[in-house]
C-alpha cells in the first residue's frame, strides 16, 4: 500500500499536538486529538477529513496506521508537555506550519506580576508579548519580562539535583525528605521556609497546608526589593494591612514622593499606560501634571512637570510641610525640608483646586510614616475611592522576618532551612550577616534556577523549572489572578515550586498541573469548561472590589521626623535591569543600557555634579563608600539631577555565582545595607582611592545640549496649532516608487518614559546578539532601537528627556547611495532594507547615516555554538554573522506575515494588523506603526499632528520615522522654573 502522503502543514500541526507524548500513549492521544474539534478543523484544510475512529475500513485503518508511525516519530521531538494546553489566540484563518502560536500565561518577577502571551514556534518559546486581556499588561510588557525567554534557554541553568555539590536525584531527595517529615511532624520548630513574594494562590494554599502539617514551622516571604514599607505605612494609616491601587487615569495632579510608579512599582506597566494616557494633549481630559520629589532621578521623575530634587531623608519633611499647607492638624514639629515655601504653596493650591482628582503617592524608599501621610492626605483631598483605592493583601508582610530568622539561627533553633529560589547568601542586608549564619544551619535545602551563592552553601540544591515550563498561577498588583501554563516540557530534570513543595510534603499528587488544577477546583464556579476559560483567556479571577478604608491621623502622634543632618546619605535602589540581582546572568538585561545612566554590565555610585566637582571625581573614579562600619569600593557616575548630599547605589551586582554572564560584574551594594533602614543609610563617608575603572556606557557624553534633537512645546505653542514640521526642501532626486503601502512610524516623546522595553523586545524579536562589556566600551553595542537620553535647562536642576531612535527608513536614504554593492536598497513600501547576503562590510552606510542607527558585526557576535541559545531564536529572522551591517527593519517579518494573511484573504492589510516588536512592548503606546498612505490610519493621524516633526529635517532625508514633540504642563503659578 502506498504510504499516506502528508502535506507539510500536517507534520508541524501534529508535532505541536503530539510533542512530548510517549509512544505508549500514542493511541489514546490520537483518539483525543481526533475527537477534539479544534484539531479536526486544523487538519481539515490540509489533510481532508479524518475518518471516524469507530468505523474504520481496512484501507483506512492501514492509512491511519501509516500516519501513526509518522506521528510517532514526530512525537519524539520536544514540544509542549502532554497535558492539555489551550491556545489563547487563533489568528484569523487556518494556521499553516511556521506560524507562531501564542499561549496566555503569567510571569512574576519579585512580586511584579504580568499576564503575557508567550510566543511558541514549533514548540519553542521564543518571545514574550503582553496580554491585552490582563489588567497589569494591557498588551504591553516593558523591559524585564522580555528577557524571560533568554532565562529559559540560559545554558547556565541548573540541570540536576545536587547533594553537597555532587549529582544526585530527586528520588534520593524524596527519601531524605520523608525522614524530615517524620522528624518535624509533631514539632516543626526547626523547619523554616524562605521564599519570594507569595503571589501564587496555589502556593499560598500549599503554604497553609505546610504550616498545618508541621506545627511550629515558619514560612517567610522575603524580597530584597519588596513593598514592606508601603504595607507598614498602610497599617499605620488604616490599622490593618492594605495595598493601594492607583488610578492615574482619574488624576489631574499627581505628587510622587520618591514614588517611581513608572520604573519601580508593582503594576508599573499598567500605571505607565494610565499615566501616559493622560499626557496626550489631544486627549478629552487634558494633560495631567506631575510633581516629583526625589533624591535620585527616576523614570517617574524624568516625566515630571516639576521635579524637585531633595535629599531622600528630607522628603518626609517636605510631605509634612505639604500637609501643613493643606491644613492637616496635629502634625509633629519638623525641621525645614529646604523646599521654597512658594513652591509648596503653589503645590498645595494646585492640589486643593483638583480636590478628588489629585493623587499623592509615596515610594517604597520612603519610611512607613510618609506612606501613611500620603494615605491621609488623599483622604482629606477626597481622592480615596477615586484616584486610589485599597485591597487587602493575601499574606501580610513580615518586616521582621529576616532579622527574626537570623536570631533563630544564632540561637541554634533552625535545623532545616528550605529556600525557594531565595538567594539569602547574597541578597540579604549585610547587617544581618546571613551569609555566614547560613553555614551554621545543619540542613539547607535550596530550590532555584541557578546554582547561586546560596546554593553553594546548601546541602541540597534542587533545580527549578522555569516559569515557561511549569503550571502555576499569580496575583497581580490589582488582585487579578492568572494561570501560568507551560509552553514546553521541562528541559532538564527540574520541578516547579508547587511540585517541589509537594515532594517536600510527600504528597501523593506531585504533578504541577494537577496541583494547580486541584486548587482551582476549590474555587467557585469550577467545571472543566471554566478551567479552560481561565487558562485560555489569561485571567482566572478578576480583581477584587476595593476594600473600604478610613485613614486615621493617630500615627502622627508617634511620629518624630528626623532632620537630615549628616553631610552625606546613601540611597539604595534596585538596578533597573538586573533588579535585585536575580537577572544577573541574563545577557540581554546586562547589556540593556540602564535608563538615565546608560550604563551597561555594571553599577556605579551616583553622585551629584557639585559633589563630584568638589571631590575632583570624574566618571569611573573608584571611591570607598563607608557606612556604619561597612565598606565597599565603587566607581563613580556623575548624575545630573541627583539631590545634593545623596549618593545612590544600585543592588544586584557583585554576584559571585550568577553564571558565566553575571559573575564578578560591578560591586555588591548589599554589603552596605543595614538590617533596619533598607533604603536610606545616613552618615556615609566617601573617600577617593585613586583607582579608575572603565565603565561601559553607551552614551558617555554628558553635556547639556542647547540644540537637543528632542523638541518640547509649551501650552502656548501648542494652542497656536502651528505645525512643527516644515515642508521638505526641494531635492534633485526623483521620488521613490510608491507601492500599495507606505510604512511609517511615529514616536510620541510625550508618552515615552524611557523604560527601554522597546530595545529589548527588538533584541528578542530580531535575534540581536549580546556583545559583552568590552565591546560596549568600544562602542559596538548592537541594539537596533536605542533610547537616547538628553538633559536640558539649568545643570543643577536639569530636565530629562528620552528619545527612542530606530532606523528612520529615509525616503532619500544617505546609506543607500553609498553602498558599492547595493546591499541596502529601498523597497516600494518605503522600507530601507538591508540585504545581509550581499553586504561586504564597507561600513560606508553607517558613516553616512546621520542618525547612526546602523550596527555592524565587527566580530562574530552571534553565538553559533550554544545549542540552548539557538532554540530561542526567531526562525523568521536571519542570524547575522560577522562582517555584515544590520539595522532596524521595521520588523519586516511581521509585515510579510500580514501580507501573506491579507493576500490569502484577498484583502488589504488593515490598520493595526502589523505591530512591530518595539510597539508591542511599549507600556505607554508611544510607538505607532502603520500605513502612511491610509489617511485614517493611526500613524497617519499622529503624523498629521502639529506636534509631529522629523529628526534632522534640514538634511532632507525625509524619514519615515517621525516624532511627536514633548509637551510640558507646568503649574502657571510656578512659571517655567521646573
Amino acid at each position, binding site marked *: 500500500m502506498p504510504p499516506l502522503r502528508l502535506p507539510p502543514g500536517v507534520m508541524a500541526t501534529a508535532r505541536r499536538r503530539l510533542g512530548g507524548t510517549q509512544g505508549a500513549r500514542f493511541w489514546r492521544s490520537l483518539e483525543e486529538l481526533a475527537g477534539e474539534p479544534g484539531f479536526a478543523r486544523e487538519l481539515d484544510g490540509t489533510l481532508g477529513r479524518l475518518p471516524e475512529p469507530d468505523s474504520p475500513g481496512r484501507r483506512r485503518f492501514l492509512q491511519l496506521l501509516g500516519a501513526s508511525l509518522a506521528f510517532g516519530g514526530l512525537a519524539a521531538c520536544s514540544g509542549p508537555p502532554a497535558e492539555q494546553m489551550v491556545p489563547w489566540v487563533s489568528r484569523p484563518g487556518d494556521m499553516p506550519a511556521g506560524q507562531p502560536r501564542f499561549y496566555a500565561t503569567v510571569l512574576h518577577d519579585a512580586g511584579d506580576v504580568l499576564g503575557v502571551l508567550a510566543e511558541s514556534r514549533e514548540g519553542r518559546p521564543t518571545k514574550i508579548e503582553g496580554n491585552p486581556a490582563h489588567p497589569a499588561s494591557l498588551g504591553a510588557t516593558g523591559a524585564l519580562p522580555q528577557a524571560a525567554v533568554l532565562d529559559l534557554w540560559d545554558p547556565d541553568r541548573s540541570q540536576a539535583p545536587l547533594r553537597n555539590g555532587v549529582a544526585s536525584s530527586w528520588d534520593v531527595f524524596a527519601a531524605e525528605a520523608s525522614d524530615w517529615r517524620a522528624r518535624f511532624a509533631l514539632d516543626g520548630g526547626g523547619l523554616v521556609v524562605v521564599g519570594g513574594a507569595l503571589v501564587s494562590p496555589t502556593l499560598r494554599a500549599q503554604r497553609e497546608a505546610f504550616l498545618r502539617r508541621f506545627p511550629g514551622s515558619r514560612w517567610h516571604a522575603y524580597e530584597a526589593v519588596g513593598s514592606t514599607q508601603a504595607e507598614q505605612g498602610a497599617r499605620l494609616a488604616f490599622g490593618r494591612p492594605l495595598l493601594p491601587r492607583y488610578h492615574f487615569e482619574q488624576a489631574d495632579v499627581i505628587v510622587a514622593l520618591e514614588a517611581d510608579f513608572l520604573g519601580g512599582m508593582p503594576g508599573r506597566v499598567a500605571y505607565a499606560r494610565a499615566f501616559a494616557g493622560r499626557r496626550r494633549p489631544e486627549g478629552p481630559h487634558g494633560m495631567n501634571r506631575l510633581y516629583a520629589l526625589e533624591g535620585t532621578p527616576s523614570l517617574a521623575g524624568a516625566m515630571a512637570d516639576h521635579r524637585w530634587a531633595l535629599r531622600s531623608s528630607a522628603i518626609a519633611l517636605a510631605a509634612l510641610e505639604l500637609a501643613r499647607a493643606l491644613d492637616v492638624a496635629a502634625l509633629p514639629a519638623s525641621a525645614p525640608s529646604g523646599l521654597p515655601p512658594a513652591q509648596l504653596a503653589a503645590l498645595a493650591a494646585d492640589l486643593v483646586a483638583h480636590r478628588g482628582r489629585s493623587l499623592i503617592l509615596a515610594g517604597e524608599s520612603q519610611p512607613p510614616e510618609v506612606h501613611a501621610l500620603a494615605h491621609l492626605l488623599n483622604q482629606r483631598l477626597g481622592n480615596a475611592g477615586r484616584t486610589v483605592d485599597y485591597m487587602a493583601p493575601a499574606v501580610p508582610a513580615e518586616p521582621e522576618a529576616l532579622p527574626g530568622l537570623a536570631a533563630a539561627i544564632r540561637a541554634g533553633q533552625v535545623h532545616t532551612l528550605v529556600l525557594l529560589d531565595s538567594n539569602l547568601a547574597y541578597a540579604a542586608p549585610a547587617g544581618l550577616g546571613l551569609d555566614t549564619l547560613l553555614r551554621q544551619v545543619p540542613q539547607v535545602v535550596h530550590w532555584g534556577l541557578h546554582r547561586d551563592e546560596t546554593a553553594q552553601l546548601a546541602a541540597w540544591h534542587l533545580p527549578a523549572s522555569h516559569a515557561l515550563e511549569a503550571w502555576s498561577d499569580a496575583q497581580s498588583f490589582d488582585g487579578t489572578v492568572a494561570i501560568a501554563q507551560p509552553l514546553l516540557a521541562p528541559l532538564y530534570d527540574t520541578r516547579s515550586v508547587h511540585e517541589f513543595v509537594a515532594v517536600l510534603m510527600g504528597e501523593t499528587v506531585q504533578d504541577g498541573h494537577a496541583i494547580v488544577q486541584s486548587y482551582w477546583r476549590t474555587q467557585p464556579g469550577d467545571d472543566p469548561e471554566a478551567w479552560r476559560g481561565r487558562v485560555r483567556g489569561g485571567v482566572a479571577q478578576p480583581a477584587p472590589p476595593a476594600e473600604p478604608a478610613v485613614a486615621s491621623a493617630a500615627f502622627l502622634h508617634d511620629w518624630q521626623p528626623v532632620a537630615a543632618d549628616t553631610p552625606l546619605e546613601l540611597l539604595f535602589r534596585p538596578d533597573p535591569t538586573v533588579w535585585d540581582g536575580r537577572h544577573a546572568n541574563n545577557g540581554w538585561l546586562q547589556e540593556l543600557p540602564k535608563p538615565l545612566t546608560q550604563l551597561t554590565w555594571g553599577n556605579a555610585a551616583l553622585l551629584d555634579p557639585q559633589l563630584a566637582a568638589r571631590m575632583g571625581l570624574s566618571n569611573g573614579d573608584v571611591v570607598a563608600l563607608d557606612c556604619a562600619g561597612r565598606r565597599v569600593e565603587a566607581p563613580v557616575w556623575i548624575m545630573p539631577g541627583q539631590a545634593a548630599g545623596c549618593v545612590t547605589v544600585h543592588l544586584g551586582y557583585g554576584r559571585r555565582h550568577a553564571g558565566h554572564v553575571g559573575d564578578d560584574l560591578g560591586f555588591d551594594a548589599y554589603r552596605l545595607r543595614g538590617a533596619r533602614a533598607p533604603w536610606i543609610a545616613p552618615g556615609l563617608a566617601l573617600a577617593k582611592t585613586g583607582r579608575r575603572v572603565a565603565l561601559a556606557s553607551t552614551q558617555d557624553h554628558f553635556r547639556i545640549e542647547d540644540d*537637543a534633537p528632542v523638541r518640547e512645546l509649551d501650552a502656548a505653542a501648542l494652542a497656536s496649532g502651528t505645525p512643527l514640521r516644515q515642508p521638505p526642501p526641494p531635492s534633485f532626486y526623483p521620488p521613490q516608487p510608491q507601492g500599495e503601502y507606505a510604512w511609517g512610524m511615529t514616536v510620541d516623546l510625550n508618552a515615552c518614559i524611557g523604560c527601554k522595553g522597546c530595545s529589548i523586545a527588538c533584541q528578542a524579536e530580531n535575534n540581536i546578539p549580546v556583545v559583552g562589556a568590552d565591546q560596549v566600551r*568600544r562602542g559596538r553595542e548592537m541594539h537596533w532601537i536605542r533610547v537616547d537620553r538628553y538633559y536640558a535647562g539649568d545643570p543643577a536642576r536639569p530636565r530629562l528627556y528620552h528619545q527612542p531612535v530606530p532606523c528612520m527608513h529615509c525616503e532619500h536614504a544617505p546609506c543607500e547611495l553609498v553602498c*558599492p554593492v*547595493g546591499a541596502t536598497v529601498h523597497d516600494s513600501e518605503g522600507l530601507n532594507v538591508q540585504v545581509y547576503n550581499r553586504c561586504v*562590510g564597507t*561600513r560606508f552606510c*553607517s*558613516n*553616512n547615516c546621520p542618525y547612526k542607527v546602523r550596527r555592524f558585526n565587527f*566580530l562574530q557576535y552571534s553565538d553559533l555554538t550554544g545549542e540552548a541559545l539557538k532554540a530561542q531564536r526567531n526562525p523568521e529572522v536571519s542570524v547575522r554573522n560577522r562582517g555584515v551591517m544590520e539595522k532596524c527593519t521595521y520588523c519586516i517579518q511581521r509585515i510579510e506575515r500580514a501580507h501573506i494573511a491579507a493576500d490569502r484573504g484577498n484583502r488589504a492589510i488593515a490598520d493595526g494588523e502589523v505591530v512591530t516588536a518595539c510597539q508591542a512592548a511599549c507600556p505607554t503606546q508611544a510607538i505607532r506603526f502603520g500605513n502612511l498612505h491610509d489617511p485614517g490610519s493611526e500613524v497617519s493621524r499622529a503624523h498629521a499632528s502639529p506636534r509631529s516633526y522629523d529628526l534632522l529635517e534640514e538634511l532632507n532625508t525625509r524619514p519615515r520615522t517621525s516624532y511627536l514633540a514633548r509637551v510640558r504642563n507646568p503649574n502657571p503659578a510656578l512659571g517655567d522654573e521646573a
Partner: protein
Amino acid sequence: MSGRDALAPHALIAPGQTPAAISAKVAGLALRPRGGRAWRLATLAALALTALLGVGIAVLLVRGVGIWGVNIPVAWAFAIADYVWWIAIGMAGTFISAALYLTRQPWRSPLSRYAESMTVFAVSVSGLFPILHLGRPWFFYWLAPYPDRMGVWPQWRSALTWDFFAILAYLLVSLMYWYVGLLPDLATLRDRAATRAKQVGYGLLALGWRGEARHWRRYRTLSLVLAGLAVPLVFSVHSMVALDFSEGLLPGWHSTLFPPFFVAGALFSGFAMALVLGVPLRRWFGLGDYIREIHLDRLAKMVLAAGLVVDYSYAAEIFMACYGGDRHELAALAARVGGAYAWVFWTVVGCNVVSIQALWWPRVRRCEAALFAIGVLVLAGMWLERFMLIVDSLYRGFLPSSTGLFHATFWDYAFLAGSVGLFLLLFLLFVRWLPVLSMFELRRLAAEEARA
C-alpha cells in the same frame, strides 16, 4: 655643497660622466654579488615588519575587523587612513616619470626610476587596505561588474565602486609603464651579467630587447601612450578617493573642493616620500653625480608648492565652514580645532604648514638632513591629516547622542607598521636587483650635456 655639485651647479649630471661610466656604476649596483651589511639588516627589519603584517592579516581574516579599534560611529579609521596615505604617496612617482616626461623636463631623468618604483609599491600596498578593511574581504570582487546568474551589479552611484576601478586601472597602468621603462635597462643588465642565472633571469625579463632602432621607436610610442594614460589616471584616482568622502553628508566630508585638494595633498606627500627615499639612496649608493643638489632643490620646491596648495585647502575649509554658517559644519570645525582630537589638527598644522616654510631658504633646500627631516614630518603630517579627516569627522555626528571616541588597538598600529615594512621590503628588493636609476635616460642626458 659637495665638490662635484660646486663644479657646475646647474648641470643636471656631473661633468665628465660618460655613458659607459653610467652603465658601469648603475648596473654594478644591481649586479654586485652581495647586498652589503646595511642592506641585509634593513631587509631583515623590513621582513620582520612584513611578517607582522602577515600575522595581522591572518588574525584579521580569522577574527574580523573588530580586532581594530573601529566602532560605531567611527566605522573607518586606520585602514582607510593607511589606504589614502599610501595611494597618495604613489602620486609623485607618476608625476615625475609621466607628467614631466610629457612636458619634456630633462631633470626628471635620474629621479624617474626610483620614484616610479615607489609609485608601484605604494599603490600595491595601498590596494591591500580597501580589501582588508571590508567586513567580509573574501567578497571584495562583488564590487566588480561581472556577469552572474543573479544578475546583480555593483551600485553605480557609490563612489566606492568607482574607486575600485580607479585603483585597479591606476595600478595596472603604472605597473605597465614602470615595466616598459625598465626594458632597455634590463637588457643592459642581461648583457653585463656575469653569472648564467642572472643572464637568464634578466634575459627573460628583458623580453628580447636588443636596442634596435625599431625597438626604440616602439618603445617611445608605447611610453608616450602609457604616460598619456597614466597622467589622467593619477588625477582620476585621487579625485575618486576624494569623492569617497565628498559623497558623504558628514560635516568635514561633504565638500566639493576635495578632489583638487586631494590631488595637491597626494603630490605633497609623494614628493616628500621622494625626498625621504632619494636622500639615503644618493648617500649610500654614491649617486651624487646623478641625483645632484639641483634635483633635491627642485623636489623641495615641488614639496613647497604642493604644500602651499594644501595649506590653502585647510584655510578654504575653515573659511567655507564660517562663510556657509551651517550649524553642523561650524560645530565640526569647533571640534576639529578644540575637540577630542584637537592635538591631531595642531600636529598637522605643525607638520604641513609650519615645517615646510623652511623650504623658502635655498640653503635648506640643499641640505640633505633638513630635507630628510622635513620629508618625514610631511609624511607624518599627511598621515595624521587623513586620520583627522576620517576619525575627527566621524566621532561626533549630527545627533549629540552619537558621539564616540576611537581608540586604536595594537593591530591598528601593526597594520600601519607592517605596511611600511612591506613597502620598504619591496623597495629594498628593487634597489638590490634592479637599476635604481634609468641608465639609458642618463646616458642620453650625459650625451646631451656633453653636446651642449
